[in-house]
């Protein structure tokens, strides 16, 4: 039982990170119908920038909470401006181009960011020195440390805050309007360019926080880490219903928990046939099933022109 609880906790933490990254995918898709492949790499930049800043600030003698806060702030600023620039440079000029064109530039931007990071940080693994050793507590026989609790709570706050922002603020209303119909929204006086820029800004800032969490949680990062993280988060977004913010949250959490439980129990379930190296099978099996039964994802709405 304690093992099961521990796996649930592992999955919950992992899922919270997936969910945060998935928000970035889903927001952009909801508004532009574009899969922003560069988003995983923006998260990677967030992770590496915060790693560098934490090391620098820590070396400068600042107390740990302050350096974490400043590093997180720095990562948010860097990633938000990166997200904003990506939209401005790579996507806005292609706003009225065929769907395929921005998709290709998205892949191009992703590669560009990866290799720029490789130039800046090198191709080796970046390690965060163990400056924080969070104390852990025991819960139902499982170990949880304060960092894990902080990750889950912070992620929940961000997700809740974003959902509130979209539904209760002026900008949020503009976002929803643009999502429903950009042309009509702009006729009604919504500055759709600004709304889209804001979407990228927000998504990238949330990605930066996710990157900070990854680097703190695992203590290690490298220029290629955004790829797998992005893929998993994208899967989570599709699982929950891409374009739907609440769906991204549920999809992310679900994916994290499925992965953890699968790694723990796949061997028993398959009678020793499959080892833990097949854990991703489960996650993607669930994805296929959901898409077969509910093509729009768990919370997605069926819409005519977007599938």
């Amino acid at each position, binding site marked *: 039982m304690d093992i099961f609880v521990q796996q649930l906790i*592992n999955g919950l933490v992992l899922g919270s990170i997936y969910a945060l990254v998935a928000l970035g995918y889903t927001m952009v898709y909801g508004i532009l119908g574009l899969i922003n492949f560069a988003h995983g790499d923006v998260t990677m930049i967030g992770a590496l920038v915060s790693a560098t800043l934490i090391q620098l600030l820590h070396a400068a003698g600042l107390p740990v909470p302050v350096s974490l806060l400043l590093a997180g702030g720095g990562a948010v600023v860097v990633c938000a401006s990166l997200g904003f620039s990506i939209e401005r440079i790579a996507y806005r000029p292609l706003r009225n181009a065929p769907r395929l064109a921005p998709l290709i530039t998205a892949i191009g931007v992703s590669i560009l960011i990866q290799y720029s990071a490789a130039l800046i940080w090198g191709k080796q693994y970046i390690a965060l020195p163990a400056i924080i050793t969070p104390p852990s507590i025991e819960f139902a026989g499982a170990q949880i*440390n304060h960092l894990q609790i902080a990750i889950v709570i912070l992620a929940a706050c961000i997700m809740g805050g974003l959902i509130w922002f979209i539904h209760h603020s002026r900008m949020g209303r503009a976002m929803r309007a643009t999502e429903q119909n950009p042309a009509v929204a702009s006729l009604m006086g919504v500055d759709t360019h600004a709304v889209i820029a804001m979407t990228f800004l927000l998504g990238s800032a949330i990605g930066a926080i996710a990157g900070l969490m990854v680097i703190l949680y695992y*203590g290690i990062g490298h220029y290629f880490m955004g790829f797998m993280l992005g893929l998993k988060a994208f899967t989570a977004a599709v699982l929950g219903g891409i374009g739907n913010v609440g769906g991204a949250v549920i999809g992310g959490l679900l994916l994290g928990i499925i992965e953890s439980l699968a790694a723990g129990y796949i061997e028993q379930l398959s009678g020793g046939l499959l080892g833990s190296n097949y854990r991703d099978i489960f996650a993607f099996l669930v994805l296929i099933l959901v898409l077969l039964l509910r093509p729009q994802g768990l919370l997605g709405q069926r819409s005519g022109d977007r599938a």
Partner: protein
Amino acid sequence: MTLHSKPIMIRTIMSSLVLSVGLLGCGKEQPPAKVEAPAPQPLIIKIGSASPLTGPQAHIGIDIRNGVQLAIEDLNAAGIMVGDQKATFELVAEDDEANPTKATTVAQKLVDAKVAAVVGHFNSGASIPASKIYADAGIPQISPGSTNPDYTLKGYPTTFRVVAHDGQQGPTLARFAINTLKSRSIAVIDDSTAYGQGLADNFEATAKELGAKIVAHEHTTDKDTDFKAILTKIKGKKPDLIMFGGIDPQAGPMIKQMQDLRIKARFMGGDGVQTPNFIKLGGAASEGAMASIPGLPKDKMPGGNEFLAKFKTRFNQDVELFAPMGYDAVQVLVAAMKRAGSADPAKYLPELKNTQHQGVIGPIAFDEKGDLKNAPITIYVVKAGQWEPLEVIQPEPVAVAAESSPAPAAPANAVAPAEAPAAAAPSAPTAVKK
């Protein structure tokens, strides 16, 4: 190749210069045709060295090349007679950039340069594709650092190495875990790569033989950083040791997460874990972790301290890792040439298999596959943030507290069981003692 072979052959014979290496390289069709040129000129013997001289592994590659160069300078200073000619050795160093494709290009270049032997490559991924080219040309290749078992499993008679391979490392780790650490229930994790899984499987097989219980064998990848799920599963099985087949980018976070989950088991890995990077990534959690590395610690090698000093004087640089292996590879090649009285690969290659040489790294002799016999392996442990040698293990076959007689001792991993390497016996003038 065949197009060019004729003119080159004619020229070679006419000038009656050095030897037949080139002939062999170019025209394999008629190996018996080559006759040693009975010329009185000094014999020039080219020794190839291939290793990464640029890129992230350059420090290791340059180290190997310097080892080879030092050996050549020593030999030239000593004035070696091969046959009845005074031999002069020349170094032909090539850069394979640790890249398999570049390695084959470089191999061909060395073959075309008519080297008598090649010391290289460093990376298994480079040594393996290059080995075919050397084999086709009949040129002996001794790798100073490639540990993938496959390297010597291609059946080429020209392929040798002077370092323990992973097939020897895994069983040695298992014997250490069970005989010394008294581990009884062990969890194994591998990173699903040829290296990691091979190491883990070899470890598991020997551990089972010795009666330990393998409570779990989990898999991850060489890109993953989240091991909480498999570690949690392992925790439920309560092992007293976790063995990881893989490299430091995974091992570091893994040992950290072990600590997070309060797993009490000790941690052990192969040479991919025995790096400063592992300690950096694992932080305080890495304390007490163990890992093996083929060969002896530099200063524990029989000729170690003398070699380290000589190397430092010559290159104004400390030995990185594999320079002694490169040095010994040249020495053992030349020992074989002396015995054969020829630097013609076709003539001295059969002798190489029977040559025993007391090298810097210890006694060198090859088994029938070309692997180093009785390759020692050292277990290290992390103490106060540093890797410290813990124990040196000779991977002798299991059981039988055999008093070391020079010849037998089949390779530790029973890939080819009971193929007596009897060949070694007749030639050995100096008994191999350890």
